[in-house]
């Protein structure tokens, strides 16, 4: 059928794992916006959900690090982290290996991909699913972009990944939704955890909503690291979604929540031609 829904959301583990340490009103507003994104996602009646994530050494390590990897399993499991630490119970998540295979074959026409028939979801996927598909009943196809272990794929190549994904989604009979998960500026898991460059984030989100390719791919990793921390490398997931959706974005929630270590973001994007 085609791509029927595109959105982006934060995935920081504190969103669930440290919810009890946050201002209850602030946490409730954000969690509510997250669930509302899930309702819009469901209203698009997708047959499968592609999650473009930036994992944190759950499956991929510097011994053999793919820039881009796509899951090709019948089922996945997560979280790999301590469920109590993350605040999400361990569960199985359905996949769709045949659909993965068709998507991968089409994407490979223009992008080199690794594929994986084993994949343990970390907070990068489990936190979004916890809010978006809390019954874990929608088949998921995970895509990982290496945002942790440089060298990282350049942003114009990430754009190409998103374009390939769109072409692939439009080539299958299923209705496909895509969610990109990541941070904008953040310094996670360091003593700086909680530092957020709000001005930088808002500038990025303007570029994202306008779907301004040139502006989105013009960030250098050096500038991102300086202004947005090592967590800022995860803008790759949001950029890939913009390339796939080809539409205009709507921002529903953005607020720095330091105890969650990130500017908490919920947005979706119209599907353009």
């Amino acid at each position: 059928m085609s791509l029927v829904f595109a959105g982006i959301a934060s995935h920081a583990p504190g969103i669930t794992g440290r919810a009890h340490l946050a201002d209850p009103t602030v946490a409730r507003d954000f969690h509510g916006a997250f669930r509302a994104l899930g309702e819009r996602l469901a209203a698009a009646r997708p047959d499968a959900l592609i999650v473009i994530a930036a994992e944190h050494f759950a499956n991929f390590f510097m011994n053999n690090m793919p820039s881009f990897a796509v899951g090709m399993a019948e089922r996945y499991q997560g979280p790999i982290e301590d469920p109590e630490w993350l605040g999400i119970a361990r569960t199985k998540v359905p996949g769709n290996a045949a659909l993965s295979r068709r998507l991968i074959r089409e994407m490979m026409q223009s992008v080199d991909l690794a594929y994986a028939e084993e994949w343990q979801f970390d907070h990068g996927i489990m936190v979004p699913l916890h809010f978006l598909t809390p019954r874990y009943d929608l088949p998921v196809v995970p895509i990982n972009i290496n945002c942790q272990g440089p060298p990282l794929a350049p942003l114009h190549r990430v754009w190409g990944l998103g374009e390939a994904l769109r072409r692939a989604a439009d080539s299958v009979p299923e209705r496909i939704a895509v969610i990109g998960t990541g941070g904008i500026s953040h310094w996670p898991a360091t003593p700086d955890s909680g530092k957020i460059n709000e001005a930088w984030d808002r500038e990025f989100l303007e570029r994202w909503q306008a779907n301004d390719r040139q502006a989105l791919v013009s960030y250098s990793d050096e500038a991102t690291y300086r202004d947005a921390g090592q967590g800022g490398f995860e803008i790759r997931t949001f950029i890939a979604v913009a390339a796939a959706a080809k539409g205009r974005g709507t921002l529903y929630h953005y607020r720095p929540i330091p105890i969650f270590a990130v500017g908490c973001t919920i947005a979706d994007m119209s599907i353009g031609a």
Partner: protein
Amino acid sequence: MSLYQMQKFLFDINRDRGVQQQYRDDLDGLLDRYELTAEERGAIATGDIGLIYVLGANGQLLMHYAAFLGMPWAEYIAAMRRGVSRYGPVRAGLYHMTTAMDEKVAGV
């Protein structure tokens, strides 16, 4: 400096319950599997999160190891700050500290 090997240890222990069990039963035997410097090996053997941080470990690996050692979040943040105070700035990797020593960015 064998940061790759130290991070490989963290990667393995974070995701493999067998490695976690060997950590408890036979730490020396486990650490023999990695080509670590004496400083790295000592940091792991004593659970010195601050030193492992200063040696350059990626925080996405280190925070789970800290949780495995039973460290609450605030204590993990404090341990990294203590490490920088004791051993100096982070020597490698991407997870440098950019805030002041007494700055509690997230209030913890």
